[in-house]
Protein backbone atom coordinates (compact mmCIF):
# COMPACT_ATOMS: atom_id res chain seq x y z
CA UNK A 1 0.00 0.00 0.00
CA UNK A 2 1.24 3.48 -0.82
CA UNK A 3 0.68 4.52 2.77
CA UNK A 4 3.19 2.04 4.12
CA UNK A 5 6.06 4.29 5.08
CA UNK A 6 9.22 3.10 6.60
CA UNK A 7 9.24 6.31 8.64
CA UNK A 8 6.08 6.62 10.71
CA UNK A 9 6.53 10.36 11.14
CA UNK A 10 6.25 11.08 7.44
CA UNK A 11 3.02 12.69 6.29
CA UNK A 12 2.05 13.71 2.80
CA UNK A 13 -0.38 16.61 2.74
CA UNK A 14 -2.15 17.73 -0.42
CA UNK A 15 -2.29 21.49 -0.68
CA UNK A 16 -3.55 23.79 -3.38
CA UNK A 17 -0.76 25.98 -4.63
CA UNK A 18 -0.93 29.40 -2.91
CA UNK A 19 -4.09 28.29 -1.06
CA UNK A 20 -4.71 29.13 2.59
CA UNK A 21 -3.45 25.74 3.70
CA UNK A 22 -0.19 26.55 1.97
CA UNK A 23 0.12 29.60 4.22
CA UNK A 24 -0.19 27.45 7.29
CA UNK A 25 2.21 24.79 6.07
CA UNK A 26 4.74 27.39 5.07
CA UNK A 27 4.59 28.89 8.55
CA UNK A 28 4.96 25.49 10.19
CA UNK A 29 8.02 24.73 8.15
CA UNK A 30 9.56 28.17 8.49
CA UNK A 31 9.15 28.11 12.25
CA UNK A 32 10.46 24.54 12.36
CA UNK A 33 7.29 23.46 14.16
CA UNK A 34 7.30 20.26 12.16
CA UNK A 35 10.57 19.31 13.74
CA UNK A 36 9.32 20.39 17.12
CA UNK A 37 6.27 18.15 16.87
CA UNK A 38 8.14 15.36 15.22
CA UNK A 39 6.39 15.20 11.87
CA UNK A 40 8.06 15.10 8.43
CA UNK A 41 5.73 16.99 6.18
CA UNK A 42 5.78 16.32 2.47
CA UNK A 43 3.62 18.82 0.64
CA UNK A 44 1.84 17.49 -2.44
CA UNK A 45 0.88 20.49 -4.50
CA UNK A 46 -2.40 20.26 -6.36
CA UNK A 47 -3.84 22.67 -8.89
CA UNK A 48 -7.46 22.74 -7.76
CA UNK A 49 -9.57 21.64 -4.85
CA UNK A 50 -11.10 19.07 -7.14
CA UNK A 51 -7.90 17.10 -7.19
CA UNK A 52 -7.96 16.48 -3.43
CA UNK A 53 -10.14 13.37 -3.58
CA UNK A 54 -8.03 12.01 -6.41
CA UNK A 55 -4.94 12.62 -4.32
CA UNK A 56 -6.43 10.82 -1.33
CA UNK A 57 -7.86 7.84 -3.20
CA UNK A 58 -5.08 7.76 -5.76
CA UNK A 59 -2.66 7.44 -2.86
CA UNK A 60 -0.46 10.43 -3.57
CA UNK A 61 -1.41 12.09 -0.28
CA UNK A 62 -2.20 10.87 3.21
CA UNK A 63 -4.09 13.97 4.20
CA UNK A 64 -6.23 16.29 2.11
CA UNK A 65 -8.22 19.34 3.05
CA UNK A 66 -11.93 19.69 2.40
CA UNK A 67 -15.16 20.08 4.37
CA UNK A 68 -16.69 17.66 6.83
CA UNK A 69 -20.02 17.23 4.99
CA UNK A 70 -17.87 15.69 2.29
CA UNK A 71 -16.36 13.40 4.90
CA UNK A 72 -19.80 12.37 6.12
CA UNK A 73 -20.87 11.72 2.58
CA UNK A 74 -17.82 9.51 2.04
CA UNK A 75 -18.61 7.57 5.17
CA UNK A 76 -22.14 7.05 3.93
CA UNK A 77 -20.72 5.68 0.70
CA UNK A 78 -18.55 3.23 2.61
CA UNK A 79 -15.23 5.03 2.73
CA UNK A 80 -14.49 5.72 6.39
CA UNK A 81 -12.56 8.96 6.64
CA UNK A 82 -11.67 11.16 9.57
CA UNK A 83 -11.89 14.91 9.95
CA UNK A 84 -9.95 17.38 12.10
CA UNK A 85 -10.56 21.13 11.87
CA UNK A 86 -8.40 23.51 9.90
CA UNK A 87 -10.48 26.64 9.37
CA UNK A 88 -13.82 28.10 10.16
CA UNK A 89 -13.39 31.04 7.83
CA UNK A 90 -16.53 31.67 5.86
CA UNK A 91 -17.44 33.66 2.80
CA UNK A 92 -20.03 36.34 2.40
CA UNK A 93 -22.40 37.94 -0.02
CA UNK A 94 -20.76 41.07 -1.39
CA UNK A 95 -22.09 43.83 -3.61
CA UNK A 96 -20.49 46.83 -5.25
CA UNK A 97 -19.98 49.80 -2.91
CA UNK A 98 -22.60 51.92 -4.63
CA UNK A 99 -25.07 49.10 -5.07
CA UNK A 100 -28.73 49.87 -4.42
CA UNK A 101 -28.87 46.58 -2.56
CA UNK A 102 -28.77 47.67 1.05
CA UNK A 103 -30.48 44.83 2.85
CA UNK A 104 -30.80 41.13 2.35
CA UNK A 105 -34.37 41.62 1.15
CA UNK A 106 -33.11 43.84 -1.65
CA UNK A 107 -31.75 40.75 -3.38
CA UNK A 108 -35.16 40.25 -4.88
CA UNK A 109 -34.85 39.47 -8.59
CA UNK A 110 -31.18 40.40 -8.50
CA UNK A 111 -28.50 38.39 -10.22
CA UNK A 112 -26.73 36.61 -7.42
CA UNK A 113 -23.56 34.71 -8.25
CA UNK A 114 -23.07 31.53 -6.25
CA UNK A 115 -19.58 30.08 -6.18
CA UNK A 116 -19.43 26.36 -6.69
CA UNK A 117 -22.70 24.74 -7.52
CA UNK A 118 -26.32 24.66 -6.47
CA UNK A 119 -25.34 22.26 -3.70
CA UNK A 120 -22.63 24.45 -2.21
CA UNK A 121 -22.86 24.36 1.59
CA UNK A 122 -22.84 28.12 2.07
CA UNK A 123 -25.57 28.50 -0.49
CA UNK A 124 -27.76 25.99 1.27
CA UNK A 125 -27.24 27.75 4.58
CA UNK A 126 -28.01 31.08 2.97
CA UNK A 127 -31.22 29.65 1.58
CA UNK A 128 -32.18 28.41 5.02
CA UNK A 129 -31.54 31.90 6.31
CA UNK A 130 -33.71 33.40 3.57
CA UNK A 131 -36.47 30.98 4.39
CA UNK A 132 -36.36 32.16 7.97
CA UNK A 133 -35.95 35.87 7.25
CA UNK A 134 -37.97 36.36 4.10
CA UNK A 135 -40.14 33.29 4.07
CA UNK A 136 -39.03 32.65 0.54
CA UNK A 137 -36.75 30.30 -1.31
CA UNK A 138 -33.77 32.39 -2.30
CA UNK A 139 -33.38 30.30 -5.46
CA UNK A 140 -36.65 31.84 -6.68
CA UNK A 141 -36.47 35.13 -4.80
CA UNK A 142 -33.17 36.12 -6.37
CA UNK A 143 -31.75 34.96 -9.69
CA UNK A 144 -28.84 32.74 -8.72
CA UNK A 145 -26.08 31.99 -11.20
CA UNK A 146 -23.64 29.29 -10.28
CA UNK A 147 -20.07 29.16 -11.47
CA UNK A 148 -16.39 28.89 -10.78
CA UNK A 149 -15.34 31.38 -8.08
CA UNK A 150 -12.83 33.34 -10.18
CA UNK A 151 -15.32 33.72 -13.04
CA UNK A 152 -18.03 35.07 -10.74
CA UNK A 153 -15.62 37.53 -9.19
CA UNK A 154 -14.78 38.91 -12.60
CA UNK A 155 -18.41 39.08 -13.60
CA UNK A 156 -19.24 41.03 -10.47
CA UNK A 157 -16.44 43.48 -11.24
CA UNK A 158 -17.81 43.86 -14.76
CA UNK A 159 -21.26 44.56 -13.45
CA UNK A 160 -22.75 41.45 -14.99
CA UNK A 161 -23.81 40.29 -11.54
CA UNK A 162 -25.46 42.32 -8.80
CA UNK A 163 -24.09 40.32 -5.90
CA UNK A 164 -21.89 37.31 -5.28
CA UNK A 165 -21.78 34.66 -2.61
CA UNK A 166 -18.14 33.62 -2.69
CA UNK A 167 -15.48 31.77 -0.75
CA UNK A 168 -13.79 33.79 1.92
CA UNK A 169 -10.50 34.52 0.14
CA UNK A 170 -12.41 35.95 -2.80
CA UNK A 171 -14.69 38.07 -0.64
CA UNK A 172 -11.74 39.30 1.41
CA UNK A 173 -10.04 40.51 -1.75
CA UNK A 174 -13.26 42.06 -3.03
CA UNK A 175 -13.83 43.90 0.22
CA UNK A 176 -10.32 45.28 0.05
CA UNK A 177 -11.16 46.54 -3.40
CA UNK A 178 -14.12 48.48 -2.05
CA UNK A 179 -16.93 46.03 -2.42
CA UNK A 180 -19.41 45.96 0.38
CA UNK A 181 -20.34 43.00 2.52
CA UNK A 182 -24.11 42.51 2.38
CA UNK A 183 -24.22 39.59 4.74
CA UNK A 184 -21.48 37.28 5.92
CA UNK A 185 -21.95 33.59 6.35
CA UNK A 186 -20.93 34.05 9.92
CA UNK A 187 -24.01 36.24 10.43
CA UNK A 188 -26.07 33.62 8.68
CA UNK A 189 -24.85 30.95 11.08
CA UNK A 190 -25.66 33.15 14.02
CA UNK A 191 -29.12 33.81 12.67
CA UNK A 192 -29.64 30.08 12.26
CA UNK A 193 -28.61 29.54 15.84
CA UNK A 194 -25.31 27.88 15.22
CA UNK A 195 -23.08 28.70 18.17
CA UNK A 196 -20.15 28.26 18.45
CA UNK A 197 -19.35 28.25 14.76
CA UNK A 198 -17.29 25.18 14.09
CA UNK A 199 -14.66 24.73 11.44
CA UNK A 200 -16.20 23.56 8.19
CA UNK A 201 -12.93 22.84 6.48
CA UNK A 202 -10.40 20.45 7.86
CA UNK A 203 -7.82 17.75 7.43
CA UNK A 204 -9.17 14.46 6.13
CA UNK A 205 -7.51 11.07 6.06
CA UNK A 206 -8.55 7.46 5.69
CA UNK A 207 -9.52 5.76 8.88
CA UNK A 208 -7.94 2.60 7.59
CA UNK A 209 -4.52 4.24 7.56
CA UNK A 210 -5.07 5.92 10.90
CA UNK A 211 -3.15 3.52 13.08
CA UNK A 212 -0.03 4.09 11.08
CA UNK A 213 -0.50 7.80 10.56
CA UNK A 214 -1.70 8.88 13.97
CA UNK A 215 1.63 10.01 15.44
CA UNK A 216 2.30 12.14 12.41
CA UNK A 217 -1.22 13.51 12.32
CA UNK A 218 -1.09 14.47 15.94
CA UNK A 219 2.19 16.20 15.16
CA UNK A 220 0.59 18.06 12.29
CA UNK A 221 -2.39 19.17 14.37
CA UNK A 222 -0.19 20.35 17.21
CA UNK A 223 2.10 22.18 14.82
CA UNK A 224 -0.91 23.75 13.13
CA UNK A 225 -2.28 24.91 16.43
CA UNK A 226 0.97 26.58 17.41
CA UNK A 227 1.43 28.09 13.95
CA UNK A 228 -2.10 29.49 14.10
CA UNK A 229 -1.39 31.00 17.50
CA UNK A 230 1.59 32.72 15.98
CA UNK A 231 -0.39 33.89 12.95
CA UNK A 232 -3.17 35.15 15.18
CA UNK A 233 -1.09 37.41 17.34
CA UNK A 234 2.04 38.25 15.40
CA UNK A 235 2.45 40.11 12.13
CA UNK A 236 5.98 38.92 11.48
CA UNK A 237 5.10 35.51 10.02
CA UNK A 238 2.65 37.21 7.65
CA UNK A 239 5.41 39.19 5.96
CA UNK A 240 6.98 35.88 5.02
CA UNK A 241 3.69 34.73 3.47
CA UNK A 242 3.08 37.92 1.60
CA UNK A 243 4.49 36.79 -1.80
CA UNK A 244 2.41 33.65 -1.88
CA UNK A 245 -0.76 35.50 -0.86
CA UNK A 246 -0.62 37.49 -4.09
CA UNK A 247 -2.19 40.52 -2.46
CA UNK A 248 -2.48 43.45 -4.83
CA UNK A 249 -1.93 46.04 -2.09
CA UNK A 250 -1.72 46.54 1.67
CA UNK A 251 -5.47 46.68 2.03
CA UNK A 252 -5.94 43.34 0.39
CA UNK A 253 -3.13 41.92 2.47
CA UNK A 254 -4.77 43.16 5.64
CA UNK A 255 -8.15 41.87 4.58
CA UNK A 256 -6.79 38.40 3.88
CA UNK A 257 -4.93 38.37 7.16
CA UNK A 258 -8.06 39.33 9.06
CA UNK A 259 -10.10 36.72 7.23
CA UNK A 260 -7.64 33.99 8.04
CA UNK A 261 -7.45 34.97 11.69
CA UNK A 262 -11.23 34.92 11.98
CA UNK A 263 -11.20 31.32 10.80
CA UNK A 264 -8.71 29.96 13.31
CA UNK A 265 -10.23 27.21 15.47
CA UNK A 266 -8.96 25.02 18.22
CA UNK A 267 -9.19 21.22 18.36
CA UNK A 268 -12.62 19.74 17.74
CA UNK A 269 -14.78 20.02 20.85
CA UNK A 270 -18.09 18.67 22.06
CA UNK A 271 -19.62 22.11 21.42
CA UNK A 272 -18.34 21.95 17.83
CA UNK A 273 -19.94 18.55 17.52
CA UNK A 274 -23.34 19.93 18.54
CA UNK A 275 -23.06 22.84 16.15
CA UNK A 276 -22.00 20.57 13.34
CA UNK A 277 -24.97 18.31 13.91
CA UNK A 278 -27.19 21.35 13.77
CA UNK A 279 -25.65 22.49 10.52
CA UNK A 280 -26.14 19.04 9.12
CA UNK A 281 -29.82 19.20 10.04
CA UNK A 282 -30.15 22.52 8.31
CA UNK A 283 -28.42 21.23 5.21
CA UNK A 284 -30.65 18.19 5.01
CA UNK A 285 -33.85 20.15 5.51
CA UNK A 286 -32.65 22.83 3.11
CA UNK A 287 -32.98 20.08 0.58
CA UNK A 288 -29.51 18.89 -0.18
CA UNK A 289 -30.61 15.91 -2.14
CA UNK A 290 -26.98 15.17 -2.82
CA UNK A 291 -26.42 14.50 0.84
CA UNK A 292 -29.80 13.14 1.74
CA UNK A 293 -30.24 10.94 -1.27
CA UNK A 294 -27.18 8.89 -0.57
CA UNK A 295 -28.11 8.21 3.03
CA UNK A 296 -25.67 10.63 4.56
CA UNK A 297 -26.24 11.23 8.23
CA UNK A 298 -24.40 12.89 11.03
CA UNK A 299 -21.75 10.63 12.48
CA UNK A 300 -19.65 11.77 15.45
CA UNK A 301 -17.11 9.08 14.62
CA UNK A 302 -16.03 11.16 11.65
CA UNK A 303 -14.48 13.81 13.86
CA UNK A 304 -11.10 13.60 15.45
CA UNK A 305 -9.50 15.50 18.28
CA UNK A 306 -6.08 14.61 19.64
CA UNK A 307 -6.29 12.85 22.95
CA UNK A 308 -10.08 12.52 22.72
Amino acid at each position, binding site marked *: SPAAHADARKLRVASVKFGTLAWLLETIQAEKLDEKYNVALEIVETATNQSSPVALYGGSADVVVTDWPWALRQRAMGEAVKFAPFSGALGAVVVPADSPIKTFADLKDKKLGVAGSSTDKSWLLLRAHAQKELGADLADYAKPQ*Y*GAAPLLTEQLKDG*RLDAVLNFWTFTARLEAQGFRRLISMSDVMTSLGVDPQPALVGFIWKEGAQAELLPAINGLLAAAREANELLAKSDAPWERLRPMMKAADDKEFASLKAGYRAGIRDYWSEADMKSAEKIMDILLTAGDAELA*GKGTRFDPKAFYAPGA
Partner: protein
Amino acid sequence: MLPARKLSPAGATAERLLWTLASLTTLVALWSLAAMISDSRHLPGPMKVLEVLGQESASGALWSNMSITLVRVACAFFLAMLIGTMIGIAIGSYKRADQFFDSWLVLFLNLPALVIIALSYVWLGTTELTAIMAVAINKIPNVAVQMREGARQLSRDLSEMAKLYNFGPWKTLRHVTLPQLAPFAAAAARSGLALVWKIVLVVEALGGHATGVGHQIHAAFGNYDVPTILAYALAFIVVIQIVEFGILQPLQARVMRWRR
Protein backbone atom coordinates in the same frame (compact mmCIF):
# COMPACT_ATOMS: atom_id res chain seq x y z
CA MET B 1 -10.43 -6.94 -46.88
CA LEU B 2 -12.93 -7.79 -49.57
CA PRO B 3 -16.45 -7.26 -48.27
CA ALA B 4 -18.76 -10.20 -48.04
CA ARG B 5 -22.01 -10.74 -49.89
CA LYS B 6 -24.55 -7.97 -49.50
CA LEU B 7 -27.82 -8.54 -47.72
CA SER B 8 -31.22 -7.02 -48.25
CA PRO B 9 -31.78 -3.82 -46.21
CA ALA B 10 -34.13 -5.52 -43.72
CA GLY B 11 -31.83 -8.49 -43.30
CA ALA B 12 -28.90 -6.16 -42.92
CA THR B 13 -30.63 -4.20 -40.13
CA ALA B 14 -31.57 -7.39 -38.30
CA GLU B 15 -28.00 -8.62 -38.60
CA ARG B 16 -26.62 -5.31 -37.35
CA LEU B 17 -29.00 -5.41 -34.40
CA LEU B 18 -27.88 -8.90 -33.52
CA TRP B 19 -24.23 -7.97 -33.59
CA THR B 20 -24.83 -4.85 -31.56
CA LEU B 21 -26.70 -6.82 -28.92
CA ALA B 22 -24.03 -9.49 -28.76
CA SER B 23 -21.40 -6.82 -28.46
CA LEU B 24 -23.19 -4.97 -25.68
CA THR B 25 -23.88 -8.18 -23.78
CA THR B 26 -20.20 -9.09 -23.87
CA LEU B 27 -19.30 -5.63 -22.70
CA VAL B 28 -21.69 -5.73 -19.75
CA ALA B 29 -20.49 -9.22 -18.86
CA LEU B 30 -16.87 -8.10 -18.88
CA TRP B 31 -17.76 -5.08 -16.81
CA SER B 32 -19.60 -7.20 -14.21
CA LEU B 33 -16.62 -9.50 -14.03
CA ALA B 34 -14.18 -6.65 -13.56
CA ALA B 35 -16.41 -5.11 -10.89
CA MET B 36 -16.68 -8.46 -9.11
CA ILE B 37 -12.97 -9.08 -9.15
CA SER B 38 -11.91 -5.59 -8.10
CA ASP B 39 -14.77 -5.43 -5.58
CA SER B 40 -14.16 -1.73 -4.96
CA ARG B 41 -16.57 1.12 -4.71
CA HIS B 42 -14.52 2.89 -7.35
CA LEU B 43 -15.69 0.36 -9.92
CA PRO B 44 -19.35 -0.30 -9.27
CA GLY B 45 -20.91 -3.10 -11.29
CA PRO B 46 -23.68 -2.59 -13.84
CA MET B 47 -26.40 -3.39 -11.33
CA LYS B 48 -25.26 -0.67 -8.95
CA VAL B 49 -25.09 1.86 -11.75
CA LEU B 50 -28.47 0.80 -13.04
CA GLU B 51 -29.90 1.29 -9.58
CA VAL B 52 -28.61 4.87 -9.45
CA LEU B 53 -29.91 5.41 -12.95
CA GLY B 54 -33.30 4.21 -11.76
CA GLN B 55 -33.27 6.61 -8.81
CA GLU B 56 -32.23 9.59 -10.89
CA SER B 57 -34.78 8.72 -13.52
CA ALA B 58 -37.54 8.32 -10.96
CA SER B 59 -36.74 11.67 -9.39
CA GLY B 60 -36.89 13.26 -12.81
CA ALA B 61 -33.39 14.68 -12.41
CA LEU B 62 -32.03 12.44 -15.15
CA TRP B 63 -34.55 13.58 -17.72
CA SER B 64 -34.30 17.28 -17.11
CA ASN B 65 -30.52 17.24 -16.99
CA MET B 66 -30.22 15.02 -20.04
CA SER B 67 -32.58 17.06 -22.14
CA ILE B 68 -30.80 20.30 -21.32
CA THR B 69 -27.41 18.83 -22.07
CA LEU B 70 -28.60 17.18 -25.26
CA VAL B 71 -29.95 20.45 -26.59
CA ARG B 72 -26.63 22.13 -25.88
CA VAL B 73 -24.69 19.28 -27.46
CA ALA B 74 -26.89 19.28 -30.55
CA CYS B 75 -26.72 23.05 -31.11
CA ALA B 76 -22.98 23.27 -30.55
CA PHE B 77 -22.39 20.22 -32.72
CA PHE B 78 -24.31 21.49 -35.73
CA LEU B 79 -22.85 24.96 -35.42
CA ALA B 80 -19.31 23.59 -35.20
CA MET B 81 -19.77 21.12 -38.04
CA LEU B 82 -21.22 23.77 -40.32
CA ILE B 83 -18.66 26.47 -39.70
CA GLY B 84 -15.76 24.04 -39.37
CA THR B 85 -16.61 22.36 -42.65
CA MET B 86 -16.83 25.66 -44.45
CA ILE B 87 -13.47 26.79 -43.11
CA GLY B 88 -11.91 23.40 -43.79
CA ILE B 89 -13.05 23.27 -47.39
CA ALA B 90 -11.98 26.83 -48.03
CA ILE B 91 -8.46 26.46 -46.70
CA GLY B 92 -8.04 22.96 -48.05
CA SER B 93 -8.93 24.11 -51.55
CA TYR B 94 -6.89 27.28 -51.74
CA LYS B 95 -3.22 26.84 -51.05
CA ARG B 96 -2.71 30.53 -50.29
CA ALA B 97 -5.50 30.55 -47.73
CA ASP B 98 -4.06 27.42 -46.18
CA GLN B 99 -0.60 28.88 -45.85
CA PHE B 100 -1.99 32.03 -44.33
CA PHE B 101 -4.50 30.59 -41.91
CA ASP B 102 -2.59 27.50 -40.88
CA SER B 103 -0.98 29.29 -37.93
CA TRP B 104 -4.31 30.68 -36.83
CA LEU B 105 -5.76 27.23 -36.90
CA VAL B 106 -2.86 25.88 -34.87
CA LEU B 107 -3.46 28.62 -32.35
CA PHE B 108 -7.17 28.11 -31.91
CA LEU B 109 -6.83 24.35 -32.05
CA ASN B 110 -4.43 24.32 -29.13
CA LEU B 111 -5.94 27.04 -26.99
CA PRO B 112 -6.94 25.24 -23.78
CA ALA B 113 -10.69 24.79 -23.37
CA LEU B 114 -10.35 26.60 -20.05
CA VAL B 115 -9.13 29.77 -21.73
CA ILE B 116 -11.94 29.81 -24.25
CA ILE B 117 -14.57 29.01 -21.67
CA ALA B 118 -13.30 31.53 -19.16
CA LEU B 119 -13.07 34.34 -21.69
CA SER B 120 -16.47 33.52 -23.20
CA TYR B 121 -18.16 33.65 -19.84
CA VAL B 122 -16.50 36.83 -18.80
CA TRP B 123 -17.34 38.52 -22.07
CA LEU B 124 -20.77 37.16 -22.78
CA GLY B 125 -22.05 36.42 -19.30
CA THR B 126 -23.75 33.23 -18.15
CA THR B 127 -26.28 32.62 -20.87
CA GLU B 128 -27.36 29.63 -22.85
CA LEU B 129 -25.76 31.18 -25.93
CA THR B 130 -22.43 31.49 -24.14
CA ALA B 131 -22.39 27.80 -23.35
CA ILE B 132 -23.12 26.86 -26.94
CA MET B 133 -20.69 29.38 -28.35
CA ALA B 134 -17.89 28.34 -26.04
CA VAL B 135 -18.28 24.72 -27.02
CA ALA B 136 -18.56 25.49 -30.71
CA ILE B 137 -15.44 27.65 -30.65
CA ASN B 138 -13.57 24.81 -29.01
CA LYS B 139 -14.71 22.38 -31.65
CA ILE B 140 -14.61 24.43 -34.88
CA PRO B 141 -10.82 24.31 -35.45
CA ASN B 142 -10.98 20.59 -34.89
CA VAL B 143 -13.56 20.07 -37.63
CA ALA B 144 -11.72 22.48 -39.88
CA VAL B 145 -8.46 20.58 -39.56
CA GLN B 146 -10.13 17.33 -40.46
CA MET B 147 -12.11 18.66 -43.39
CA ARG B 148 -9.04 20.45 -44.70
CA GLU B 149 -7.29 17.12 -44.98
CA GLY B 150 -10.24 15.87 -46.99
CA ALA B 151 -10.29 18.93 -49.21
CA ARG B 152 -6.61 18.44 -49.95
CA GLN B 153 -7.36 15.00 -51.35
CA LEU B 154 -10.07 16.13 -53.74
CA SER B 155 -9.79 14.43 -57.10
CA ARG B 156 -8.42 16.75 -59.72
CA ASP B 157 -9.91 14.55 -62.43
CA LEU B 158 -13.41 15.20 -61.14
CA SER B 159 -12.83 18.90 -60.50
CA GLU B 160 -11.72 19.29 -64.10
CA MET B 161 -14.75 17.38 -65.29
CA ALA B 162 -17.05 19.59 -63.21
CA LYS B 163 -15.39 22.67 -64.62
CA LEU B 164 -15.70 21.56 -68.25
CA TYR B 165 -19.31 20.52 -67.79
CA ASN B 166 -20.14 23.89 -66.19
CA PHE B 167 -21.31 22.47 -62.88
CA GLY B 168 -20.97 25.84 -61.18
CA PRO B 169 -20.13 26.23 -57.49
CA TRP B 170 -23.28 24.84 -55.92
CA LYS B 171 -23.57 21.69 -58.01
CA THR B 172 -19.85 21.09 -57.66
CA LEU B 173 -20.12 21.35 -53.91
CA ARG B 174 -23.07 19.07 -53.65
CA HIS B 175 -22.25 16.39 -56.18
CA VAL B 176 -18.48 16.49 -56.52
CA THR B 177 -16.91 17.90 -53.37
CA LEU B 178 -19.13 16.78 -50.52
CA PRO B 179 -19.32 13.12 -51.56
CA GLN B 180 -15.53 13.02 -51.54
CA LEU B 181 -15.48 14.64 -48.12
CA ALA B 182 -18.07 12.27 -46.70
CA PRO B 183 -15.58 9.92 -45.03
CA PHE B 184 -13.81 12.86 -43.44
CA ALA B 185 -17.11 14.33 -42.37
CA ALA B 186 -18.09 10.98 -40.88
CA ALA B 187 -14.86 10.85 -38.91
CA ALA B 188 -15.23 14.45 -37.82
CA ALA B 189 -18.84 13.89 -36.82
CA ARG B 190 -18.17 10.79 -34.75
CA SER B 191 -15.12 12.04 -32.96
CA GLY B 192 -16.71 15.46 -32.86
CA LEU B 193 -19.92 14.47 -31.17
CA ALA B 194 -17.85 12.90 -28.43
CA LEU B 195 -15.66 15.96 -28.14
CA VAL B 196 -18.61 18.34 -28.01
CA TRP B 197 -20.18 16.30 -25.28
CA LYS B 198 -16.96 16.32 -23.31
CA ILE B 199 -16.58 20.07 -23.64
CA VAL B 200 -20.21 20.63 -22.72
CA LEU B 201 -19.44 18.76 -19.52
CA VAL B 202 -16.57 21.10 -18.76
CA VAL B 203 -18.58 24.17 -19.68
CA GLU B 204 -21.50 23.11 -17.54
CA ALA B 205 -19.13 22.58 -14.66
CA LEU B 206 -17.17 25.83 -14.97
CA GLY B 207 -19.80 28.09 -16.39
CA GLY B 208 -22.04 27.42 -13.47
CA HIS B 209 -25.20 26.21 -15.07
CA ALA B 210 -27.17 24.68 -12.26
CA THR B 211 -28.43 21.96 -14.52
CA GLY B 212 -27.11 19.59 -17.09
CA VAL B 213 -25.28 16.32 -17.01
CA GLY B 214 -21.94 18.09 -16.69
CA HIS B 215 -23.09 19.77 -13.55
CA GLN B 216 -24.23 16.45 -12.11
CA ILE B 217 -21.07 14.67 -13.06
CA HIS B 218 -18.87 17.33 -11.57
CA ALA B 219 -20.87 17.39 -8.40
CA ALA B 220 -20.58 13.62 -8.23
CA PHE B 221 -16.88 13.84 -8.96
CA GLY B 222 -16.50 16.24 -6.04
CA ASN B 223 -17.98 13.54 -3.82
CA TYR B 224 -16.10 10.84 -5.62
CA ASP B 225 -19.44 9.23 -6.28
CA VAL B 226 -18.47 6.89 -9.11
CA PRO B 227 -21.86 5.18 -9.55
CA THR B 228 -23.55 8.52 -10.21
CA ILE B 229 -20.81 9.62 -12.61
CA LEU B 230 -21.15 6.38 -14.51
CA ALA B 231 -24.94 6.52 -14.48
CA TYR B 232 -25.00 9.94 -16.14
CA ALA B 233 -22.19 9.10 -18.54
CA LEU B 234 -23.98 5.93 -19.51
CA ALA B 235 -27.27 7.69 -20.10
CA PHE B 236 -25.60 9.90 -22.64
CA ILE B 237 -23.76 7.01 -24.23
CA VAL B 238 -27.05 5.18 -24.67
CA VAL B 239 -28.40 8.18 -26.57
CA ILE B 240 -25.33 8.25 -28.80
CA GLN B 241 -25.59 4.51 -29.31
CA ILE B 242 -29.14 4.99 -30.53
CA VAL B 243 -28.08 7.81 -32.84
CA GLU B 244 -25.24 5.62 -34.11
CA PHE B 245 -27.47 2.63 -34.74
CA GLY B 246 -30.55 4.43 -35.98
CA ILE B 247 -29.06 7.30 -37.95
CA LEU B 248 -25.32 7.18 -38.56
CA GLN B 249 -24.95 3.55 -39.57
CA PRO B 250 -27.88 3.42 -42.02
CA LEU B 251 -26.84 6.79 -43.44
CA GLN B 252 -23.31 5.61 -43.90
CA ALA B 253 -24.43 2.40 -45.57
CA ARG B 254 -26.54 4.46 -47.96
CA VAL B 255 -23.78 6.90 -48.69
CA MET B 256 -21.28 4.14 -49.35
CA ARG B 257 -23.64 2.04 -51.46
CA TRP B 258 -21.92 2.99 -54.69
CA ARG B 259 -18.64 1.35 -53.72
CA ARG B 260 -18.02 -2.04 -55.21
